[in-house]
């Protein structure tokens, strides 16, 4: 899923304080306040070193703008 798809669903990010030092969230981070986001996840079959493995992928998101 590209960022464009996410931003179309969620709109422009909110201005929010930079997170505390520790996790590297200040770089390339978008913050949304007061929103509930539902991520729809499915399993995707991939081949890793010749073996079948599974990854979770986001197939859709839904944004609830009102609580």
């Amino acid at each position: 899923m590209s960022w464009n798809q996410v931003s179309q669903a969620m709109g422009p990010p909110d201005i929010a304080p930079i997170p505390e030092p520790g996790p590297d969230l200040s770089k390339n981070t978008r913050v949304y306040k007061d929103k509930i986001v539902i991520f729809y996840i499915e399993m995707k079959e991939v081949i890793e070193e010749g073996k079948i493995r599974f990854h979770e992928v986001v197939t859709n998101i839904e944004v609830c703008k009102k609580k």
Partner: protein
Amino acid sequence: MLTLDDFMRKAEGKLKVYKTFRLQADKEITEKLTICIPDMHLLERGPNDDFLDGKPEYEERFLGLLDFLLNLRQEGGDGLEIIQLGDMFDLWQAKWNTNMIVSAYPSIIGLLDKMKTIYVVGNHDIDLVQWYKDKGETFGRRWRYYSKAEGKLRAIYEHGFQADFANNQDSLSGAIGREVTRIVGMMEYIYPDIDVILGSTWDSVVRAFSKYNVFTPVRDPQGFNLHEYLKFYIGLLERYNSGDTLDHFGPEEVDLSLAVIGHTYTARLMKMPKNGKVYYLMDCGSWVNGGHEIGAISGRDMAIFH
């Protein structure tokens, strides 16, 4: 149908009979090579538990087993049946959120699903047997499963907690036990390590109850250890065979000889003659805390592999 010897040969030395647990039944038990996977308790100790004692090699080894079974399945199609015997998910620690477990172990879940695994529930994932209006049984779980040979039910597969006195729903003590289990589950929700702190206390309570299930047979000619659930399961198989159950099978459809369980973490394979028949109990051990056992049945032949 692959024989157990074929199965071992294809594993190229990676599977060995556990202790001396291999025997021939007096009649056909399955018409497919049936592989039984016991307790895994995914996520019981959090996202990096790697089947409880935090060893990633255990997960890798399990994935290796699934790769091998997937190859067999692709070669043999429906001639291979895989049954997971319950307590695959540990919902107590995952706070009843199955998504956390899928997220931690996507390849394990994905491979088992790809092989059309039959899932039976245990006492740590019992809440996955849920029937919702308009959706049916959502998680694809069963209370128990059966296999047939020669047109009759010959083996029953369930987790094994049903034999545990404190969880036996057929009795008042079982109903109380279930409530105790729920309370312990709620305590774990509030404080996830409470089961570790109460571990020995809880175990001693279960031991005190389970002694009521002990059956003292004549001296076992095979020298196997007594199984504390033997009496319960022979009784269950006899009730089925006589039609004395609430299940929908009539006595003409049933000739059960074998019960396959997990739950105790201690692999055993037992044989017990009673009332002119021979009954078998296969306890498939576990995949937690270093356990690496599976049960396997092909026709009359049955074994526990490590």
